[in-house]
Each structure stands twice: as structure tokens, then as C-alpha cells.
């Protein structure tokens, strides 16, 4: 959870269409701010991957790529932490019902790895509002 010691140096809170190109432009802004704060390469890679997976999930799964539906992207960055919330307008889902993509029988499936990667690279991943909002946080490692 954010603490009183966090000094958010950059924030954004935007509602965007279900368009991955637009979402990634926002993500590029986020990554530039992490770079300006000299976050390490591994941390930036992890944030890039996790947030991109969350955006893709919101756009393609949550909103079913419906151009009339929107995604809310809210982000706060400090020298030590990043906090991202991505909300779609879909029906939600149960992340605990997702099959494990690392089992031998599922390893050959082309999809289903986004949530696993989010959890691997972020310090905290929480699904709220029946799964239609995801909170991603990362404490800086490097």
C-alpha cells in the first residue's frame, strides 16, 4: 500500500478507447518517467511487460475489443514505487479460475500467460470489482 513516505513525482489518470496503440502510448510515458528516475533495466522491463499484459487483457478480454467500451488507466510513479490501476467495462472474471499455463498439458497453448507474468514481475497484483479492475504495484528493486 502507498505510504506517507511516497512522493509521487508523476501521475496520470486517463480514460482511453479499447485501442492497444493508445494504451501503449500511455505506457511509454510511464516507462520514460521510470527511466528519468533511474529505475533499473530489470524493473523497467518487468513493469513494461506486466502493465502491457494488463492493458491487453482489459482491451481484448475485458472489453472484448469493443470500440465503444473504454479503459481507465491510472498511474502514480515515485522514485521507489509505481502504482497502476487498469479498469475495463467488461463483466469481470475470476482470476482464480484461470488454468495454470505452466503445466505440461497447457504449456503448448498459445495464450493464457498474462496474469502469471503480471504476478511474477510486480510486487502486488490485485483484482477488484469482480476482476474488471486490476491494481499493479511494484517496489523498486534496482
Amino acid at each position, binding site marked *: 500500500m502507498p505510504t506517507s513516505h511516497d512522493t509521487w513525482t508523476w501521475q496520470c489518470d486517463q480514460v482511453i478507447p479499447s485501442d*492497444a496503440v493508445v494504451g*501503449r502510448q500511455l505506457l511509454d510515458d510511464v516507462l520514460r518517467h521510470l527511466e528519468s528516475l533511474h529505475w533499473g*533495466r530489470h524493473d523497467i522491463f518487468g513493469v513494461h*511487460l506486466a502493465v502491457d499484459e494488463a492493458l491487453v487483457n482489459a482491451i481484448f478480454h475485458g472489453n472484448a475489443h469493443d470500440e465503444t467500451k473504454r479503459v481507465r488507466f491510472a498511474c502514480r510513479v515515485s522514485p521507489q514505487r509505481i502504482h497502476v490501476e487498469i479498469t475495463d467495462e467488461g463483466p469481470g472474471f475470476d482470476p482464480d479460475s484461470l488454468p495454470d499455463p505452466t503445466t505440461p498439458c497447457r*504449456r503448448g497453448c*498459445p*495464450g493464457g500467460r*498474462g496474469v502469471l*507474468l503480471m504476478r*511474477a514481475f510486480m510486487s502486488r497484483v490485485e483484482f477488484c470489482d469482480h476482476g474488471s479492475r486490476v491494481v499493479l504495484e511494484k517496489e523498486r528493486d534496482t
Partner: protein
Amino acid sequence: MTAYRRLDVNEVGDVTVVRFRDHKIIEDVNIQELGQEMFRLVETDGRRSLLLDFSSVDFLSSAALGKLITLDKKMKAHGGVLKLSNIRAEIYEVFAITKLNRLFDIRKDEADALAAF
């Protein structure tokens, strides 16, 4: 001569060595095109020994992993061999987390991979 937009394709002996033109394999349209080009190598061009050299790749999304998995299936279905090489540490971590390092034959560098065919 087949033209590829997303790939640089070369031959080293009997092995087709493929390098990616995109440093970040993330955009959906590019990934679709990349997949089609890789599949063409197997299904149309009849390549049976394929090495994917990731030395120019800084980032790839899970959608790109999906195309690699499908490529691997196609190679196996055609009796071919697929190897990967020159994967940077962060991307190898993605393969390890997803346990795809157990699916793919991943080698340190091109020389190591070529010697293994």
C-alpha cells in the same frame, strides 16, 4: 526470392537462421505478420532446421510467445527442428517463469545452437 518484412532470413549450411527486425515484439499487427512469416518458412518454404536468433530483441509480449509455440508445433508436425538463441536475460526469465524453457531448445549463442543441429 521471398521477401520478409519482419525477419532477416539467412542460411548457414542446412540451417535457416532467422533474426527479428523488430527490437520490441509487442504490436499486435506486427506479431500477426511475424507469425505468418515464420509459419511460411515451415509450411511454404519447407525449412526443416530453423534457428531463431533473438540478439536484436529487447522485449516481447506473451502474444509473441504464442506465435513461437505455434511455430514449434508446426515444425514438429513437419519433422523439423527449432532452436532459439541469444536470448537476453530478462526475456529468458519470461521463458523460465512460463516454463517454456522446457518446451524450446534454447542455446546461449548462434554458434552453440548451430553445433547442436
